[in-house]
């Protein structure tokens, strides 16, 4: 059997099997899910040759599945993270209800994403996209909390996205008579000059998943509401599907040959205009999400907003349309998948062991959960963009691309502001959960079980490796970029020289970084192991001053209060409110229109006669 079919079959069968077996035991179900994803990953990395494809027809539509370098890049994230997250889930979900449904949908999401990666035509792309969407919807509402508020919002925005995508797909079919992605690209479907609607609709569709302003409002709630072991996938891999699509569209749009249409002044202008718009949307997303991340007291929500902010960077990178910018974006996408996956795993472990993720309630877990802390530390370093880990490389490349290649200085300022603010919440996260004094409530907390530790550590190690040897990721990215139109991406030094200097060899750099990192880690650990005096967080000396009545002395609450006060105007207006108003308005309208059905049979009869009369009056113009 063909490997493509086999992989998807394994995944779908795994989904079904874990659903059925979930009735018996949660662990069996989780194990089946893990095994099926692991098996699929193994097949994906060993059996499928790059560039191979199969063709078949379904419902009279020619479909093509294959694997290209671009898909492969995302396949690494999806299946790698999927395998780890499913392993992680086994313990995380151990004592929860309805686990069969969870694993069923979990594997379906993975299957959907794998299918998206395989899809070489828009129809299977859309089918798998939708499978991914509804399966993730079912997981988001799985806990039964906030179903109406968050679940429906997620589904509505997903539907808006999916349907704009579908509109674009059928328009491509209508204009170019093809469903194949490659044919559409060759025909110039993404060429913004000829088709304004198709790329924009597709971008809306992918923008929803990538949580770009103003379509991001579903994301914080959805990320937070899903079980944490799924949020790993959700934030780490699923949002990357949006990036995948945006990269595909934008890449081909910016690299399209416009020599023929350059005569038109406005057409060239419009591409730049779109580019700027998307870039700014990404930038604003990054800033706003960062600001919101700052005021969160819940670690999971903090990470949720942080994810949105990171996706904003990626969007900015993609929107530059330059080799360096896109490369930065894709690099960030991969690294974000790893560190955000790790961070959510950390939060999940804390949630499972301590029962809450509220940073005002717990602190000082470093001694109880050292491995978890280690993962968190490494990931936070990567997240905040502190050298030497991957986040720094990506961000540096992004700045460079913005400054040198697209001259977007204001955007750089915005991004830089956001990155700086990201330090604050990164610190908050690390401090709130792990550092500080131990709380009484967390005395009984133990380290997470081994099946949760392993995936976390694997991701942490990966972070260190990618930080040390970014070339490991640059190599697949370079080949992937060829697929989206950036030819001749030579990543060896010539692109990177602006980051690390011409002379320096990455390997040595990596070793240096590794040594520095290990020594820091050893220092911290040793220091942590030595006995220190621990005081409760609420036990604060006031240095002899009498506190005012309404002064909050517990610094865990209102952590960044001065900052928040400074940025208060930014919080006032939120996209959420606008969407809510729109929803309420529409609902009122719908309530009004249905009053047409008055309940009086005679009125209905009157409608019939009025309609008949109208038709008769206009019959000679309507039906000639």
């Amino acid at each position, binding site marked *: 059997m063909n490997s493509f079919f086999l992989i998807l079959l394994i995944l779908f069968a795994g989904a079904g099997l874990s659903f059925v077996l979930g009735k018996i035991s949660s662990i069996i179900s989780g194990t089946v899910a893990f095994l099926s994803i692991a098996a699929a990953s193994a097949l994906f990395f060993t059996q499928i040759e790059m560039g191979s494809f199969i063709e078949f027809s379904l419902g009279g539509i020619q479909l093509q599945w294959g694997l290209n370098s671009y898909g492969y890049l995302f396949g690494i994230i999806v299946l790698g993270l999927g395998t780890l997250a499913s392993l992680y889930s086994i313990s995380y979900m151990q004592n929860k209800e309805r686990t069969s449904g969870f694993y069923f949908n979990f594997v379906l999401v993975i299957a959907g994403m794998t299918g998206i990666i395989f899809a070489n035509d828009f129809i299977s792309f859309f089918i798998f996209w939708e499978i991914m969407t509804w399966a993730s919807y079912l997981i988001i509402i799985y806990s039964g909390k906030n179903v109406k508020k968050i679940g429906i919002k997620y589904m509505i925005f997903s539907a808006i996205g999916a349907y704009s995508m579908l509109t674009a797909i059928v328009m491509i079919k209508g204009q170019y008579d093809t469903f194949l992605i490659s044919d559409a690209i060759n025909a110039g479907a993404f060429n913004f000059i000829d088709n304004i609607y198709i790329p924009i609709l597709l971008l809306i569709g992918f923008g929803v998943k990538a949580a770009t302003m103003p379509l991001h409002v579903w994301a914080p709630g959805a990320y937070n509401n899903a079980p944490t072991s799924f949020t790993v996938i959700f934030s780490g891999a699923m949002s990357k599907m949006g990036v995948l699509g945006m990269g595909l569209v934008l890449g081909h749009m910016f690299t399209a040959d416009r020599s023929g249409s350059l005569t038109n002044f406005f057409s060239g202008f419009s591409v730049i205009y779109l580019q700027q718009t998307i870039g700014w949307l990404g930038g604003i997303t990054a800033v706003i999400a960062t600001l919101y991340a700052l005021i969160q007291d819940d670690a999971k929500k903090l990470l949720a907003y942080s994810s949105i902010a990171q996706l904003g960077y990626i969007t900015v990178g993609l929107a530059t349309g330059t080799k360096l910018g896109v490369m930065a974006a894709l690099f960030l996408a991969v690294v974000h998948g790893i560190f955000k996956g790790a961070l959510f795993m950390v939060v999940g472990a804390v949630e499972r062991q301590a029962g809450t993720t509220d940073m005002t309630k717990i602190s000082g877990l470093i001694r109880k959960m050292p491995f978890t802390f280690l993962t968190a530390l490494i990931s936070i370093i990567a997240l905040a963009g502190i050298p030497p880990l991957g986040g720094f490389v990506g961000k540096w490349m992004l700045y460079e691309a913005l400054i040198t290649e697209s001259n977007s200085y204001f955007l750089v300022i915005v991004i830089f502001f956001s990155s700086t603010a990201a330090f604050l919440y990164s610190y908050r996260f690390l401090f709130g959960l792990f550092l500080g004094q131990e709380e009484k409530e967390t005395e009984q907390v133990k380290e997470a079980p081994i099946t949760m530790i392993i995936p976390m550590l694997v991701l942490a190690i990966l972070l260190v490796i990618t930080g040390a040897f970014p070339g490991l990721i640059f190599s697949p990215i370079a080949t992937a970029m060829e697929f989206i139109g950036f030819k001749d991406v030579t990543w060896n030094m010539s692109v990177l020289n602006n980051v690390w200097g011409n002379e320096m060899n990455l390997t040595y750099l990596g070793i240096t970084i590794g040594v520095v990192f290990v020594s820091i880690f050893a220092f911290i650990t040793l220091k942590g192991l030595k006995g220190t005096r621990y005081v409760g967080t609420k036990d604060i000396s006031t240095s002899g001053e009498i506190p005012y009545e309404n002064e909050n002395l517990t610094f865990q609450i209102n952590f960044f209060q001065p900052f928040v006060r400074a940025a208060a105007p930014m919080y006032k207006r939120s996209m959420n409110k606008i969407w809510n108003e729109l929803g309420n308005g529409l609902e009122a309208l719908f309530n009004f229109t*249905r*009053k047409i*059905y*008055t*309940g*009086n*049979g*005679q009125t209905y*009869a*009157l409608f019939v*006669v009025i309609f008949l009369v109208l038709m008769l009056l206009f019959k000679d113009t309507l039906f000639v």
Partner: protein
Amino acid sequence: MQNFEQYNSIITTGVYGSAIALILIGLYAVLIKKHLIKIVIGLSIIDAGVHLLFVAIGYIKGGTAPIFSPGNEDAVNKMVDPVPQALVLTAIVIGFAVTAVALSLVIRLYKHHNTARIDQIKSLKW
């Protein structure tokens, strides 16, 4: 028979006019009258008008009924159109069936709501 032409318009107006008038009167009853029985009466008046129109379109001036009687076998050329008549037969019976069902519904509505006014029977709406 020579006077036929001058009376023709009277008869045309009479038949078509009264048929259309029946339809309109029935329609008026259905759309304005509140009592269910009045509405059903209106429906049957509309039906009557339509049946009259149906027969009227089959009529041929000076025609005879489409029945062959002994010694009348060659009257084919003078016979009125039998098809509309056959259709009206069917339509009348169907109309009766519908009226019967309508009236039974009226009875049940009256028992249920204790009124037969259509504007007071609207528990199903929106």
